[in-house]
């Protein structure tokens, strides 16, 4: 069994979430397990009532970056949530909410989009990660 890819998502902007979704889909396409751990503002973006909203971009995007991202979206680029749904259809993708961040944001499991499989602590995340790389985005 190949070691899983483990993504810790901290940032909640659409550009970083899209980068994470593409990395997840690529690994899933190769049959590699992916564990996604949602913390802080990334978890906020997975709220069921906000997942399709505009989550802004990282500060370095600037005005030109905003225009470039908008143009790609207008040309038909899938949202990061849709890319993650496609990745999960391939199998092997597990998305967990960090329990500390759930407390921080006063969230209950029912507040989250169905993309999220559950809530766990950091120890459970590391146990699932095994010897695979941990990437923080």
């Amino acid at each position, binding site marked *: 069994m190949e070691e899983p890819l483990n993504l810790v998502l901290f940032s909640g902007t659409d550009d970083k979430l899209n980068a994470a979704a593409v990395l997840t889909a690529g690994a899933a396409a190769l*049959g590699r397990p992916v564990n996604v751990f949602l913390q802080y503002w990334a978890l906020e973006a997975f709220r069921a009532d906000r997942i399709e909203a505009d989550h802004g971009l990282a500060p370095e995007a600037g005005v030109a970056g905003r225009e470039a991202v908008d143009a790609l979206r207008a040309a038909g680029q899938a949202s990061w949530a849709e890319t993650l749904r*496609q990745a999960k*259809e391939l199998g092997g993708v597990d998305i967990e909410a960090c329990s500390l961040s759930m407390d921080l944001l006063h969230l209950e499991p029912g507040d989250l989009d169905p993309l999220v499989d559950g809530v766990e602590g950091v120890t459970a995340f590391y146990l699932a990660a095994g010897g695979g790389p941990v990437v923080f985005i």
Partner: protein
Amino acid sequence: MLETPSTPAITRTIDARGSFCPGPLMELIRAIRESQVGDVIAVWSSDRGSKIDIPRWIEKAGHRLVALETRDGYDEIVVEKLR
């Protein structure tokens, strides 16, 4: 139409033009899962990464790259499902 084993007839064509990375590969994988062994699937992609990524995925997944052709503004990648 004359057919040889090296140029099998295309069973299904997926038009993924206008879809961005990794969309065309996602669509191809879905089609392959829905297909039978021996089916030949063509995917059309205007995403520049596809002509690199999709053949490598085909090799890793244990299928056969039948053809890769660059057309006007897009690439046609043809794969035979082997397993």
